[in-house]
């Protein structure tokens, strides 16, 4: 019998059951449902482009080739993995090489990503060793391309180098990411809170920071706070 069953993937379990609430009996019949987390993506060559058929070299390969050339031969020295997903190219860059990579991305005539759209943070508490991410979106006006550069840091050592020297616009964006995630950008001239009050405790956008809120009464029924409500995630 077992040879007819589909293989069970190796990926770690993201959640069990259908609903977020763990208390109370399971009346849905979905209590035994196991949902596994998707593995980390890493795309092979050729990367293709934002549009067009996959499997053929395209715009993204030009960017990767250009970066490989200016880095002196080996892309994997500085770029941990390359992800092509939904028509977007992402370089996961080692934090030690971030400033150097961005400098090349900005200045090399074949790359020329002049415009940075800022830094955004994401917190993945389940990805041990790379919990905190800074995500930089770049745009090349010369070649009309976009690129995402992602850099990670563990929760135990939340440091990434500041890239303000390459893109001065990162000033406030790095402060915002620090404010919300506690990611420390080494070399930033004034890494202070920007949205939260100066004396605030904690970093609110982290996943371990509660949303807060109080239950409200509506037409006689009590509606729990948003983070206490049943979730289907």
């Amino acid at each position, binding site marked *: 019998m077992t040879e007819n069953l589909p293989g069970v993937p190796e990926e770690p379990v993201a959640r069990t059951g259908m609903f977020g609430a763990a208390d109370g009996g399971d009346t849905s019949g979905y209590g035994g449902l196991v949902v596994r987390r998707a593995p980390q993506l890493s795309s092979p060559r050729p990367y293709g482009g934002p549009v067009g058929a996959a499997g053929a070299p395209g715009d993204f390969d030009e960017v990767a080739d250009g970066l490989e050339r200016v880095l002196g031969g080996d892309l994997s020295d500085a770029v941990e993995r390359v992800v092509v997903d939904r028509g977007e190219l992402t370089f996961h860059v080692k934090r030690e090489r971030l400033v150097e990579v961005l400098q090349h991305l900005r200045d090399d005539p074949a790359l020329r990503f002049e415009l940075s759209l800022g830094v955004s943070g994401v*917190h993945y508490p389940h990805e041990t060793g790379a919990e905190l991410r800074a*995500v930089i979106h770049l745009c090349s006006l010369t070649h009309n391309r976009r690129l995402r550069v992602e850099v990670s840091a563990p929760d135990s050592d939340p440091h990434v180098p500041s890239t303000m020297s390459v893109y001065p616009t990162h000033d406030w964006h790095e402060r915002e990411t620090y404010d919300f995630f506690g990611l420390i950008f080494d070399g930033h001239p004034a890494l202070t809170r920007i949205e939260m009050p100066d004396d605030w405790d904690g970093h609110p956008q982290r996943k371990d920071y509660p949303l807060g809120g109080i239950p409200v009464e509506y037409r006689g029924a009590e509606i729990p706070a948003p983070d206490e409500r049943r979730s*289907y995630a």
Partner: protein
Amino acid sequence: MSTAYDEAAEGKVFTVSGNDWDEVVGAVSGADEERLVINMGPQHPSTHGVLRLVLTLDGETVTEARTVIGYLHTGIEKNMEFRTWTQGTTFVTRMDYLSPIFNETAYCMGVEKLLGITDRIPERAQVIRVLMMELNRISSHLMAIATFGMELGATTPFLFGNRERELVLDLFEYITGLRMNMAYIRPGGVSVDLPAGAVDKIGEFLKIMPGRIKDMRKMLDENPAYTRRTKDVAYLDLTGCMALGVTGPVLRAAGLPWDLRKSQPYCGYETYEFDVPIEKTCDVYGRYLVRMAEMEQSLKIISQALDRVSGAELKGQPVMIEDKKIGWPAQLALGPDGFGNSPDHIAHIMGTSMEALIHHFKLVTEGFRVPAGQAYAAVESPRGEIGAHVVSDGGTRPYRVHFRDPSFTNLQAIPATCEGGMIADVIAAVASLDPVMGGVDR
């Protein structure tokens, strides 16, 4: 007036309480320091909401300008992580409250990219999105120019601008039921089709508006008081714009025709005929001219979109993706008592189709799932590029949504445009960046 030495503060601190200017002037002129640090905001009427500027002055010259923000932070991005993907639109529409349609479109395009349904959005929905965005662009630019006029001491542009903006808001109210914060654009399309009579109303608007823009131009374009306050003020050239990440009319007033509608078209903008107006003066006046010209171009786009909406090809076409697993809540209607469930839809789910009822129930209580991954979608808002970085972990709620708001980034140009200028020009500089604090702080 009271003076006190504060250990924490540098130098003498004056607390001005009104009717005490003689004392303040006396104390200041006798001070051994020439440097004067003043707070402009967070409640100063000229700073566009709760923006605080800390200015260091040498006489009337600004030697240092520092911007303090965060007074309007409402945690929209965090809150969205606790609501379904569709509910997210009601949050993002409240960010940059002068251009809600753009926030919604950027967010929805991000969600659609994650769902992989970008190509399946109905044509009619795309045309309505363009129509609404361009109407919104006009109302936003009008507000920018109106407040700008008032901040420079002219009240007529304010009255004109608000009067004209009211025309657009009336259209919004007629189409969506709300004047602002309408949450009209939804993942998969738009919430409701144009009601009967909307095409005629927009047609009337298109007849009135060119004359009104001309009136505004007559009042300001050559006005000596206005041009003296705006020409060669708050200079920011292309290099500065690139370094600081400044986009939108400020960038186009520095001579670069960079407009996402042309360079990276979305929602079918490549099929409309319009120009990208630029100026080469890099100053406040140039930014004003760009905004005026953009309104005229927007009218052009609206009239093209209106022809398509009322044309035979798109008449009666759906405005929400035809996918029962995503297309919620398409079946809404604007009734005489406001916006609500369409009676036809209620009859359908309660009377004739059990599957429709199940879909309705699942989508309303649980929402749709979005495959794991991340996407970035950007649109050209009246203030520049608004980008939505949307991350999903495969659930029914966003894992993380970040907005690259143009006002936030553009405000970083305050020191570059104000330092070394006169204090009166700070007002003009801030106004020409057109920051909206709801978008800056989110």
